[in-house]
């Protein structure tokens, strides 16, 4: 079976700086893969390359065998590869529910003109989006705060909302950039289980960037380690924990954090 996502020797140079340097790896359908590495290693840039938020300097990304790099973000989202943001990025002046409803854009059957004139298709879409939004909010434990203004939410809920927005697009591959940042232990564990269920119950393939090592070790099928823009290791959590190069470059000082 061909991998759902193939990252093939992608690089991104900013002037003299090579943020991502010839990185390659494959992602199988239904996998949860974590990308780890020190700050500034190029993880976020790698996600932006995959989602076409920035263009590549060289290399390419294939989704189901077709090139998705160097297109526009909305085109890649339409194909089924959607990213969330490292910073908590939400529509601040909308309610939680409105945030998720608007994110159903790609599932519209009606045209914009159809929505203007309130055609049958448009009314059906409105119904579907509302029901699906409620479903997603319930799934992520946000049901109780659906009518809150997004700007009033605490950090933990904002992260979950970011994920809900991504999920509403109906993605096949979801790229989560630091989904557990700013969360306490309980919140993190809840999100870890949410990500798992995302894969198990909805068949979404997940790539995530995270610094929370216990969470990463717990959640990942495989881990890709990046340092100074280059991939230095790839393997199962057990393999990564015992990889000399990784320990030296990154994990060494954080023995406690990985629980080794």
């Amino acid at each position: 079976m061909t991998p759902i996502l193939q990252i093939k020797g992608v690089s991104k140079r900013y002037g003299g700086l090579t943020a991502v340097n010839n990185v390659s790896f494959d992602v199988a359908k239904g996998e949860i893969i974590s990308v780890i590495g020190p700050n500034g290693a190029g993880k976020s840039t790698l996600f932006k390359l995959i989602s076409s938020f920035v263009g590549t300097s060289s290399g390419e990304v294939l989704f189901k065998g077709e090139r998705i790099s160097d297109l526009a973000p909305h085109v890649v989202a339409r194909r089924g590869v959607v990213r969330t943001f490292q910073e908590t990025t939400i529509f601040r002046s909308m309610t939680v529910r409105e945030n998720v409803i608007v994110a159903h854009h790609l599932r519209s059957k009606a045209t914009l003109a159809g929505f203007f004139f309130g055609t049958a298709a448009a009314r059906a879409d409105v119904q579907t989006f509302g029901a699906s939004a409620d479903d997603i909010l319930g799934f992520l434990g946000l049901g109780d705060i659906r009518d809150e203004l997004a700007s009033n939410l605490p950090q933990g809920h904002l992260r979950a909302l970011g994920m809900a927005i991504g999920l509403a697009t109906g993605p096949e591959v979801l790229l989560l950039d630091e989904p557990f940042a700013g969360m306490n232990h309980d919140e993190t564990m809840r999100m870890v289980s949410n990500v798992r269920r995302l894969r198990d119950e909805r068949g979404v393939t997940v790539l995530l960037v995270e610094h929370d090592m216990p969470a990463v070790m717990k959640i990942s099928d495989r881990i890709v380690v990046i340092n100074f823009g280059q991939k230095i290791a790839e393997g199962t959590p057990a393999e990564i924990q015992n990889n000399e190069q990784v320990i030296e470059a990154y994990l060494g000082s954080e023995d406690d954090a990985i629980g080794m």
Partner: protein
Amino acid sequence: MKNTTKIAGVGIFLLIVFVMVPWAIAASGRWDFYYTLTSVALLSIASAGVWLTFYIGRINIGQGAYTLAGGYVSAVLVTQAGVNFWLTLPLAGLFCAALSVLIGLPILRLRGVYFAMITLVLTEVARLTALALPITQGAKGITSIPLPRELSLFGMTLIPDFARLENPKLAFYLMAVILMIASYAALYRIVNSRLGHLCRSLQQNEELASSIGVNISYLRVLAYAISSFYGGIAGASFVAISQSIYPSSFQVADSVNFMLNCFLGGLGFVFGPMLGTLVLYFGWDLLFTTGRYQLLIYSSLLIALMMLLPNGLLSLNQLRGKGMRK
């Protein structure tokens, strides 16, 4: 706002513009008032367009360019091609929409003051173009434009010939008010349909909008084109009333006013620009009596108002209860 209050509000509004105003004018004999109110109605259409660009997060100080272009399109078609004014009205709107696509594609990438500054230049560019082109007849402008002819469909008169009317002032007033109502009804539908929801997503975060699959450049251009369409039909209507157009018919100051109307009425309210236009227009006229202090008082009042009511005049209503949102 509950549906019944909404319907009541619309009913009262219709009663005022179609019954009470004509009655009051007939009773007082102030026929000149029709011209004032007609102007307010048409200016508020142009302002509604500006409001829609605000709605996608762009400060548009260039609507005067499109009112001018729309005016010239209508004037040229009526005087040089003999086209019926009523046909030139949508054509002027469409011309401006098409023009705004060409202009908007590059400039809508800019945000904040950068976009605002570029649009500020547009009105001046439009004026200079009108001065330079042979078809617009330079500084002489286009004058003696005939009044709107009869519009008929299958031999049935839909709109009578304005030149034969006893009271063309009333006819123009009705035309302007009906156009205004249609424009605001359409705007209301836009804002309260998915299109409006997507516009708000652009306004709040373009990156996030594109991550959920929204083609942001398309949507920006679409909103700007609708905005400019409004400018075009407002301009064309003005020309029909004044029966003339010059390069200076719409200036930078008009563009600034269209924007101020939106600010004043409230950017969160579809009907904000309508109220803003009314208040600003009459405010300016009232201040005329204060002579050379007119501009000073006017500016100070505006600044004070915007500081006290940053969400516009209609937010007064919201403070009382949760009314009129969107």
